[in-house]
C-alpha cells in the first residue's frame, strides 16, 4: 500500500470523526484535525512505529479574517523513516484563540509556537514559556492579523528621542 493511503487509513481508524478533512494536492497530504485532539494526534503520528513523524519542521497560522473559525494553525511534520512530510491543520475560533501546545510532543515546536503567538495572538495552552518572539514585550498588537495595518500603529513601538 502506498504510504499516503496507509496514513489515511491508520488515522481514520484511530481518530474517526475527529479527522475533519483529508486533502491530497500535488502529492501533498493535508489532514485537518479537531482542535481538542491535536496533542493525541501529534503523539500518535510521532510514536506509531509505521509513521514515525519525529520532526516538527514548521508551525504557523493563517488568519482568514471573515470565517467563523477565524484561525487555522498549520503544522508541518516530517518522517525520516519514510522521507515524507505531512501537513496538519486545526481550525480554531476567534474567541478565545487558543489550542493545546504540541511542544510536549515535538520540542522544536516551542519557539514556533512563541512566534505564532507573537504574530497572531493564539494562546498555546500549557506552553512552557509563551513570551513574544520578535516584537518587544510591551507591544499590544499581533502584526500578522488581517486587521493590523501594514505600516503599524503610530506610537505603539518606542523610539529613542531625537537628538536636538
Amino acid at each position, binding site marked *: 500500500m502506498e504510504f499516503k493511503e496507509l496514513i489515511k487509513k491508520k488515522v481514520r481508524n484511530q481518530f474517526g470523526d475527529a479527522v475533519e478533512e483529508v486533502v491530497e494536492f500535488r502529492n501533498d497530504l493535508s489532514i485537518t484535525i479537531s482542535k481538542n485532539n491535536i496533542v493525541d494526534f501529534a503523539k500518535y503520528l510521532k510514536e506509531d512505529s509505521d509513521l514515525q513523524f519525529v520532526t516538527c519542521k514548521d508551525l504557523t497560522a493563517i488568519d482568514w479574517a471573515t470565517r467563523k473559525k477565524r484561525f487555522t494553525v498549520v503544522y508541518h511534520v516530517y518522517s525520516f523513516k519514510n522521507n515524507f512530510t505531512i501537513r496538519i491543520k486545526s481550525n480554531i475560533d476567534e474567541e478565545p484563540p487558543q489550542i493545546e501546545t504540541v511542544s510536549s510532543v515535538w520540542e522544536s515546536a516551542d519557539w514556533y509556537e512563541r512566534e505564532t503567538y507573537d504574530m497572531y495572538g493564539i494562546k498555546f495552552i500549557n506552553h512552557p514559556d509563551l513570551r513574544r518572539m*520578535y*516584537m*518587544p514585550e510591551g507591544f499590544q498588537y499581533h*502584526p500578522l492579523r488581517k486587521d*493590523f*495595518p*501594514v*505600516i*503599524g*500603529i503610530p506610537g505603539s*513601538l*518606542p*523610539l*529613542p*528621542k*531625537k*537628538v536636538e
Partner: protein
Amino acid sequence: MGLEAKFLQDGFITTTIDSVITWARRSSVWPMPMGISCCAIEMIAAADPKYDLARFGSEVMRFTPRQCDLMIVAGTVTYKMAQVVRRIYDQMPEPKWVIAMGACTSSGGMYRSYSVVQGIDQFLPVDVYTAGCPPRPENLINAVMEIQKKISKTRARDFQDNPLINVDAH
C-alpha cells in the same frame, strides 16, 4: 604639491588655528561601520583597494564607538535596532557626524512595514543622505566627501560647550 612648494620658498606658512584643526579633522574621519544589512557590503567594498576610501582618510573602520567621528548607518533600522543604534551614537565622542546610507535608513525604503523605522532622522541628526539600494561605493565616498566639506565649514569653538554624552537623551 602646494605645501612642499611653500617649504622650499620661505619655510613657513600663515594660517588660522581653525583651519588647521578642520584640515586635520576632515582628513581623518574615522567611521563607525554601523553595518546592519546589505548596504554594509557596499560599505566594505568602498574601503577595499579598488575604491580605496583611504584616499580620503576614512579607511579606519573602528569597531568601538569611542574612537569614531562618523557613523555610517548602513542598512535597515528596525524599531528594536533603533535603540542599539542610538546607544552606539551616544557613546561616540563629540564632534560627530552621521551618514544615512541607502534608501532604508533615509526613508524606510521598500520596507514600508510596522517593524522598520521610516527614516533614521526620527531619532538621529543625519548630515548626509545617500541614495541607492544599495548605493555604489562611489556614492558612499561622495557622501564622505560631503561630510568633509561640512567639517571644513566648522569652527573649533562650535564644539566647546557640548557635553560628551547627554545622559537625559532617552
